[in-house]
């Protein structure tokens, strides 16, 4: 059984923008998938659909065999708890510190204070932000915010990790650190989907690459690269 399946997905936004057209996609457990494509290709839209933040105009999405387009409202939060997400725009709580932002994701799922005290410093260490634990988001640089977002996404050991452009604001070195963290999490059994424009990273990692263009899948290969020509 596939972990994630997009079946005939079409997404048309209110203004008539067709962000995704007839997408069919299967991702298995413990895969590591790059989602690439030019600006506006529909990568973030894919992420939003899987997270049930947007509803598809047509088609069905199955997560772990369950059709999430038919999910009742009360079950949506529990669906989301299986998925860690690094948002392109970070989405940090502006009036909580870095530590509290990460701890919040654990409180929501009912973790004990003991678990929180153990887990949060660990993930902050993984993304290299131990010394920024008490800073508020407005006191962080762009790359630091991005790493807080990553720490929050992985703190609950989700079965799926979706990262939307997680290295866009990072220098190559820090970016590679983050990639190591993602790879490590993947090795521990988490399925990772990463939307990115970082050609170096995609080409070096040698993982499955799904390329979108104007809302359609134009390429889907194991051990792919960012782009052939250009």
């Amino acid at each position, binding site marked *: 059984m596939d972990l994630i399946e997009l079946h005939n997905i079409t997404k048309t936004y209110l203004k008539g923008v067709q962000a995704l057209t007839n997408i069919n996609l299967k991702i298995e457990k413990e895969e590591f998938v790059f989602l690439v494509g030019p600006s506006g290709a529909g990568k973030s839209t894919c992420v939003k659909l899987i997270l049930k933040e947007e509803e598809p105009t047509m088609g069905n999405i199955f997560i772990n065999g369950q059709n999430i387009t038919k999910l009742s409202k009360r079950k949506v*939060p*529990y669906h989301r708890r299986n998925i860690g997400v690094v948002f392109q725009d970070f989405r940090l709580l502006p009036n909580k510190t870095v530590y509290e932002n990460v701890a919040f994701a654990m409180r*929501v799922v009912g973790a004990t204070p003991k678990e929180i005290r153990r887990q949060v410093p660990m993930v902050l260490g993984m993304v290299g932000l131990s010394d920024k634990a008490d800073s508020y988001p407005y006191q962080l640089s762009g790359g630091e915010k991005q790493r807080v977002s990553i720490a929050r996404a992985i703190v609950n050991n989700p079965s799926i990790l979706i990262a939307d452009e997680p290295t866009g604001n990072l220098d190559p070195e820090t970016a590679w650190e983050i990639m190591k963290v993602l790879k490590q999490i993947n090795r521990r059994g988490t399925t990772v989907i990463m939307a990115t424009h970082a050609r170096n990273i995609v080409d070096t990692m040698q993982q499955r690459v799904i390329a979108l263009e104007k809302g359609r899948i134009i390429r889907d290969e194991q051990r792919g690269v960012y782009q052939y020509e250009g």
Partner: protein
Amino acid sequence: MKARTVRYVLGQGLVGLWRNRTMSMASIGTVTATLIILGLIITLVLNISNLADLVQMQFDEIQVYLEDDLSIEEINNVGKQIEAINGVSEVIYESKEEALEKYKKSWGEEGYLLEGLEKNTLPNSYIIQMDNLELADSIVEKLTPLKGIDEIKYYKEIVDQLLRIARFVRTIGLIIILILILVAIFIISNTIKLTLNARRQEIGIMKNVGATNWFIRWPFLLEGMLLGLIGAIISTAVVYYGYQYAFNAITARFYLMFSAYMISVNDMMNKTIYIFAVLGIGVGALGSIFSLRRYLKV
């Protein structure tokens, strides 16, 4: 809910109150202002109502003038007949001499004019106290056929007028209070809407990381209730000391002339404190719920 979650939610409610100090103050200020005005109107209505009751009690009697040439036996007889009427609670005999004395007294300074009367033309009379003012008409009806009665005097018009005024004041007061409660709910629900609006992003993020609706709702609900409660406490204090001050000022200024007609500070507060607490918390909670429903549906 787990105890841990409850503690978290309580903490968040308080933290929310503090983090949005400006907004919290605005909300509390609004609740306080509304409740103080409500208190003002309650004070007025209760006092006018009370005053009307008191005045009404003094006119709450029927006077039956007896014919001039009755014997004592006949007078007693009429008295017994009156006592037998349904709804009559007390019957007092007033002789013509007593009546004159009463007039002299009630006319005060001008009373001396009556000294010069060559003959006391006032009649003997019975003064009838009623169980209930509403029975007045039926009692008068039963009095009319009795023999020995010259005239039945009932301050019908005055009593009716008074009843009408009291009812009018009560109705107007009730309407104003209702409007004010609606205004309060409106203002508070709007304030919480604003709070929510300012935290829309926050709510969105909470949902993103998998928070259930109630986990998001509770802190806001608590915040609203706390806002209302604090407003209620402040306004209770203001109304208490304000009324006490006014009570004392009026008493001192008018030499106790009014104080007998005013509801005592404690009676007043016994009535208002519950109204305020219920309204404050209830309106805060209601406001939160209305606003939350709008923003958590998305």
